[in-house]
């Protein structure tokens, strides 16, 4: 036992059951961030699962082997039954993480969630600069409210992760964002370069940083990590338009994570509905275990059998699992192609060139995340 690290990432060994469940409780959200990971067609409130169904799904998830629950949205605190859902998660032994913008919380409600068994809170910020943050979220006073909520979390000793999506319109604030995480008493900071799916893909030109900006952000994070060892854990997500190899999206399709949408559709990743021809079953129709093990949508890109060249014979095929299916579809026209983020993809040069060109041009106005008009108008 000479080496200090006697830990391995638990994700690698878990072929048989998902470790994490991302529960999108609702797509309603008071913020309008132009890089939202929700689909462009947002689900409506009248299709949302009931409290009882969510509580049943959590029992099924724990029995299937899920260890961690991420309560997300939209904005999960919009749901008035959030405390009941948290209590049920604690009852069935799930590690419970609330992913929130924070702006709708009160101190009393946060205290209640903690009492019901909430383990961790993740608060997103749009910038360290309040005016720019509120402009990006299209929510006046939002940033100040988030800081207040972070203060309540600290006072309640509820562990806090600050999540900062990074793009060309806030990347220069990165040093201040790191200082803000320290000042708020966060244990973790996610410096997460925006991933270009859904709303972010729609707004890619207005969000894409230059290669030089990305490299500088990586240097800043490396220095901060060394300086803040044992004080602040910093996770860094790079934008793969400037990468040489794709990331193992979701740890591999149908390998470690399940997403459930507000209406109960069960997805291998939150963007999977952009892939035509896949039939996503819902928890109203079938058990979570059956969907995970047997549904066509999970089987479609699980493992390596679906791969074409260059993935099929690639030495990294069981490390990156071919990268992201949604990105392959969006950029190359087929979800079964290699992710264009991979330098072995014949589309890689074009992919990189798009980022280079878009990041150099003046930013277009944002298309803010808003529900599409109801069918037939108002």
């Amino acid at each position, binding site marked *: *036992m*000479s*080496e*200090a*690290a*006697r*830990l*391995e*990432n*638990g*994700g690698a*060994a*878990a072929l*048989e*059951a998902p*470790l*994490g469940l991302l529960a999108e409780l609702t797509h309603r959200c008071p913020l309008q961030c132009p890089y939202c990971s929700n689909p462009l067609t947002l689900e409506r409130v009248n299709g949302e699962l009931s409290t009882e169904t969510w509580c049943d799904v959590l029992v099924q998830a724990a029995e*299937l*082997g899920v*260890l*961690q629950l991420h309560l997300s949205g939209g904005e999960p605190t919009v749901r008035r039954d959030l405390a009941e859902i948290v209590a049920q998660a604690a009852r069935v*032994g799930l*590690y419970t*993480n609330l992913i929130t913008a924070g702006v709708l919380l009160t101190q009393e409600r946060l205290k209640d969630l903690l009492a019901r068994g909430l*383990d*961790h809170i*993740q608060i997103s910020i749009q910038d360290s600069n309040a005016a720019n943050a509120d402009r990006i979220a299209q929510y006046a006073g939002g940033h100040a409210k988030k800081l207040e909520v972070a203060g309540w979390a600290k006072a309640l*000793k*509820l*562990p806090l*992760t600050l999540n900062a999506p990074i793009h060309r319109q806030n990347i220069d604030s990165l040093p201040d964002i790191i200082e803000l995480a*320290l000042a708020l*008493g966060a*244990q*973790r900071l996610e410096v997460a370069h925006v991933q270009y799916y859904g709303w972010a893909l729609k707004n890619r030109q207005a969000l894409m940083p230059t290669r030089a900006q990305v490299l500088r952000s990586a240097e800043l994070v490396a220095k901060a990590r060394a300086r803040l*060892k*044992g*004080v*602040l*854990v910093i*996770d860094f997500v790079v934008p793969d338009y400037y990468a040489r190899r794709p990331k193992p999206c979701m740890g591999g399709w149908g390998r470690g994570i399940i997403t459930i949408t507000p209406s109960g559709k069960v997805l291998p990743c939150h963007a999977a509905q952009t892939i035509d021809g896949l039939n996503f079953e819902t928890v109203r129709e079938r058990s979570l275990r059956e969907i995970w093990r047997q549904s066509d949508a999970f089987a479609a890109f699980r493992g390596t059998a679906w791969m074409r060249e260059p993935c099929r014979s690639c030495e990294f095929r069981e490390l990156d699992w071919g990268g992201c299916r949604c990105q392959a579809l969006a950029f190359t026209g087929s979800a079964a192609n290699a992710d264009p983020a991979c330098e072995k993809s014949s589309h890689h040069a074009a992919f990189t060139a798009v980022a280079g060109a878009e990041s150099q041009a003046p930013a277009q106005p944002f298309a803010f995340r808003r529900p599409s008009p109801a069918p037939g108008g108002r």
Partner: protein
Amino acid sequence: MSKASDPQRLLIAATSVPTLPRHIKLRHDAARNRWTILAPERVLTPDAIALDILQLCNGERSVEAIADALAGQYAAPKERILTDVTNLLQDLADKGVIKA
């Protein structure tokens, strides 16, 4: 601009009394028949030795007492065990898994 109230890195010494913070859960994972450490956005799998150490971290035993307890279990010099236990706990403290 360092202030007295700034958070400091926890340095593990023989006299430290380590324990798991409330939000870190050491739990047996029945579906996979193994022990896991559940932490924010992380699932860690301790090996048998790390597990032995973590299960002795009860907020009352010092690092030295943990090494003493393990010396009876492992045939190794106590100084060596104390060094290894300290290194492992330092690594866990840097990951936010241990407080003292």
